[in-house]
C-alpha cells in the first residue's frame, strides 16, 4: 500500500502550480468571467506545453502513458486554481473514447496530446437526467453516411471544441464524431455557474463519423463517463482544500467580540468536522483514481460511484458550511470562496450526480 503521488506526479503538480501561479491568478479568473470567457487559447496551450494533456495518453500516440492517478494529480490542481479550460472533457473523456474506439485514434490522439485539437463529448439529454445511456438522439445510415438528429445538453467544453463526440442510438448506444461547423449542427453556448464553458448541441440531420461499432458503445460510454467522474472528484478535492484553507485562515484572523471567531467553540468544532470530511473525500477520491481504469467494470463502477456520491454530498455540505462560517463575506462574488462553491456544484452535477451514483452503488 502506498498513498503518495510518485516523484513524477509531484513534479508535474509543482510545475503546474508554478505555471498557474504566474499566469492565472484569482484576479485573472475573475476578469475572464467578467468578460464571459471560458476558454483562453494561451492558457490552453500552456497546459499542453506542461504535458498534462499528453500525460494520460498512450506513448504510441505521443502521450506519456499516464494512469488515472496522474489525472487526479492534475485535476486536483486545476480545481484548486479554478482553471476553466476544458481539460477533463477533452484530454480525459474524449481522448479515452478516441483511443477505445480506435477509428480515428491515429489521427486525433497525437493532436489531443499536443492540445492542437480540443474535443468535447456529449452523452446526456434533456429529460433523461443523469443516465448517459438513455438516448433519444437517432443515428441513421444511408449510403455509408450517418446522419444524426437530437439534442445533447450541458456538454462541457462544447462551446470551444474543435470536434464533438456525441452518443446516439443506432440500434443501441453508438458514438459519433461530429464537426461543430457542419451543416445540421448548432450550438447554444453558455458559461456554467463557475465560469467553465458548455453548450447544448442540437443535431438536425448532421453528418457524423461512426466511432467503433454501431450499437456497441455502451461499455465505452460508461467507462468514459467513469473516468470523467473520477477526474471531477479530484477537481472537487482541490476546490475543497482551497475552501478549507480560506475558511481556516478566516477563522484565525477575523475577530468579533474581541477575539478570533475560530476561538468560538462552535465554529472550531464545525471546522473540525469539515476537516474530517476532507480526509474522507481525499481517501475515496484516491480510490476512484486508482480504480477508474480497472478492467473489471464492476470494481470500477463501485469505486467511482462511491467516490462521486461521497464527494458530491460532502462538497455540498462543505460549501454551505464554509459560507456560513465566513458570514457575509462568504456571500460576495469577489471573494474566492463563492467560486469554489460553484465549481463544486458543477462537479457534483456532471457525469452523474450524487443521487445517481448512490443508486448505482447500491444496485451493484
Amino acid at each position, binding site marked *: 500500500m502506498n498513498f503518495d503521488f510518485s516523484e513524477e506526479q509531484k513534479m508535474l503538480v509543482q510545475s503546474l502550480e508554478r505555471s498557474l501561479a504566474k499566469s492565472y491568478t484569482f484576479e485573472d479568473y475573475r476578469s475572464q468571467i467578467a468578460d464571459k470567457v471560458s476558454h483562453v487559447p494561451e492558457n490552453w496551450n500552456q497546459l499542453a506545453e506542461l504535458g498534462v494533456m499528453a500525460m494520460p495518453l498512450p506513448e504510441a500516440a505521443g502521450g506519456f502513458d499516464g494512469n488515472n492517478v496522474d489525472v487526479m494529480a492534475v485535476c486536483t490542481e486545476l480545481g484548486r486554481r479554478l482553471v476553466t479550460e476544458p481539460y477533463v472533457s477533452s484530454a480525459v473523456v474524449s481522448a479515452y473514447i478516441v483511443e477505445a474506439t480506435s477509428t480515428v485514434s491515429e489521427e486525433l490522439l497525437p493532436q489531443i496530446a499536443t492540445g492542437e485539437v480540443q474535443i468535447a463529448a456529449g452523452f446526456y439529454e434533456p429529460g433523461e437526467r443523469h443516465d448517459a445511456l438513455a438516448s433519444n438522439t437517432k443515428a441513421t445510415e444511408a449510403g455509408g453516411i450517418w446522419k444524426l438528429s437530437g439534442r445533447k445538453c*450541458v456538454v462541457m467544453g462544447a462551446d470551444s471544441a474543435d470536434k464533438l463526440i456525441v452518443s446516439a442510438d443506432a440500434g443501441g448506444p453508438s458514438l459519433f464524431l461530429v464537426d461543430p461547423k457542419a451543416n445540421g449542427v448548432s450550438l447554444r453556448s453558455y*458559461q456554467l455557474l463557475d465560469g467553465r464553458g458548455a453548450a447544448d448541441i442540437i443535431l438536425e440531420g448532421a453528418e457524423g463519423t461512426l466511432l467503433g461499432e454501431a450499437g456497441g458503445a455502451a461499455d465505452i460510454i460508461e467507462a468514459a463517463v467513469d473516468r470523467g467522474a473520477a477526474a471531477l472528484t479530484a477537481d472537487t478535492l482541490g476546490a475543497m482544500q482551497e475552501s478549507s484553507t480560506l475558511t481556516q485562515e478566516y477563522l484565525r484572523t477575523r475577530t*468579533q467580540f474581541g477575539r478570533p471567531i475560530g476561538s468560538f467553540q462552535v465554529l472550531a468544532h464545525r471546522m473540525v468536522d469539515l476537516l474530517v470530511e476532507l480526509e474522507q473525500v481525499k481517501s475515496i477520491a484516491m480510490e476512484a483514481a486508482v480504480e477508474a481504469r480497472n478492467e473489471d467494470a464492476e470494481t470500477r463502477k463501485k469505486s467511482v460511484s462511491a467516490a462521486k456520491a461521497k464527494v458530491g454530498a460532502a462538497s455540498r455540505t462543505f460549501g454551505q458550511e464554509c*459560507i456560513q462560517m465566513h458570514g457575509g463575506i462568504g456571500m460576495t462574488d469577489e471573494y474566492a470562496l463563492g467560486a469554489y462553491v460553484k465549481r463544486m456544484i458543477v462537479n457534483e452535477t456532471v457525469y452523474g450526480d450524487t443521487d445517481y451514483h448512490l443508486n448505482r452503488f447500491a444496485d451493484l
Partner: protein
Amino acid sequence: MELQLTTEQTAFRDEVRSFLKEKLPDDIRDASKGAGHLTAEMFTRWHGILAEKGWSVPLWPEKHGGTGWSPVEYAIFDEECHSFGAPKVLPFSVSMLGPVLIAFGNDHLKEKFLPGIIDGSDWWCQGFSEPGSGSDLASLKTSAVREGDHYIVNGQKTWTTLGQHADWIFCLVRTDTNAPKPQMGISFILMPMDLPGIEVRPIITLDGSHEVNEVFFDNVKVPAEYLVGEENKGWTYAKFLLQNERIGIAGIGGSKEQLYGLKRLAAAEKKNGKPLIEDQNFKTKLAEVEIELRALDITNKRMLVETERGMDPGPVSSMLKIRGSEVAQRLYELKMEASGLYALPFQPELETEGWNDEMIGSLENAISAPRYLNTRKISIFGGSNEIQRGIISKMVLGF
C-alpha cells in the same frame, strides 16, 4: 385545541384574497413568481396600492395608520400575499424605521417621515453593519462628531440591501468613543442619500446579483435634527428595532410557495423515464421537508397566538428564524437538485428587464442554482443562526 381558522379569520382571509385578486398587477405577480428580481418601480407601485387600501403599515398603531390587525391576521395576510405572488413590502421603512420613529422620534421627525413611509414614496435603507462589525454589531466604528447644528459622519457601512435605490438611510453611528461600554456611545441618525460625501458601491453576491451595497461616508454633514431620540441611546433603539422582526420571521408563506414550486418542478422532471416526483429517494426527501414545514407552520401559529395574547414568546422567534431558514434553504437545494444538468448554465440575463431570448432549460431550472446560492444569506443576515442559538441559550440555559 383547534387548528382551523375561526369564522372571523376565514372571513378576513377571503377579504385579503378578493383584494389581491383585484388589485395585484399581473406584471408584478409574474415577476415575483417567476424570473424576477422585482424592479424598484414594482416595489414602489405595489406599496402605493397597499397604501391606498390602508394596508401598507398594518402592524403600526392605528392612530399612525395601522390596521389594528392581530398578529394572526397579519400572518394570514402575509401568507396570502405569497400565495398570490404579491411582493413583500420592504421591511426597512415599514417594519424597522417606522416603529422606532413612532416610539422614540420627536413630532418633527414623525411628521416629516411617517407619511413617506406609509405611501412608499421614500425608499429607505439600513446602515447598521460594517466590515469589521458583523455579528458583533456594537463594535461599529462609523463616527458622527457634533459640530454646531450638524454631525460630521465618517466611516463605512456594508450589506446595505437595495441601497442603490434609496432616498434615505438610517444609521447607527458612534457619537462617544469614550463610553464605558461600546453599546453606550452609539446614536441613531437619518440621512438623505444625496448628501455630499456619501458614496454607494455595489456588492455583487456569489449568485451574480446586486442586492447589497457598501456605503461610504466622507465628512458627510448631517443636520442634527435628523438624530432620532437622544444622543448615545441608539443601541436601545436598535435593539427595539431588531425585536420587531418577529412576525413573519419563519418565512412560512414563502416556503409554502417554494414547496408547491418544487412539486411542480419534480413532476415535470424525469428520472429513469418516470416523473422525478415518483422516485422513492426524491419523494422521501420531499416528504421530510414538507413535514418539517408543516410542523413549523404550527409552531409559528402557536407563537402568533401567544403574542396576540400579550405573552412574551421568549426564544421562539429565534427558533423560528433558525428552522425557517433551514427549511427554506433545503427547498432551494432540492430545486437545484431536481433541475439536474440544467441547473448549471448561468443565465443572469434572464433576470434583466425586457429579456426575451431562448433560455436553456425551464425557467425554474435556470434560476435554481442562483437562488440556492442567494438563499445561503438567510442564515447569515439579520443575526446569523449562530447568534440566534446564542440568544436562545442565554435565555434558556443562562449561558
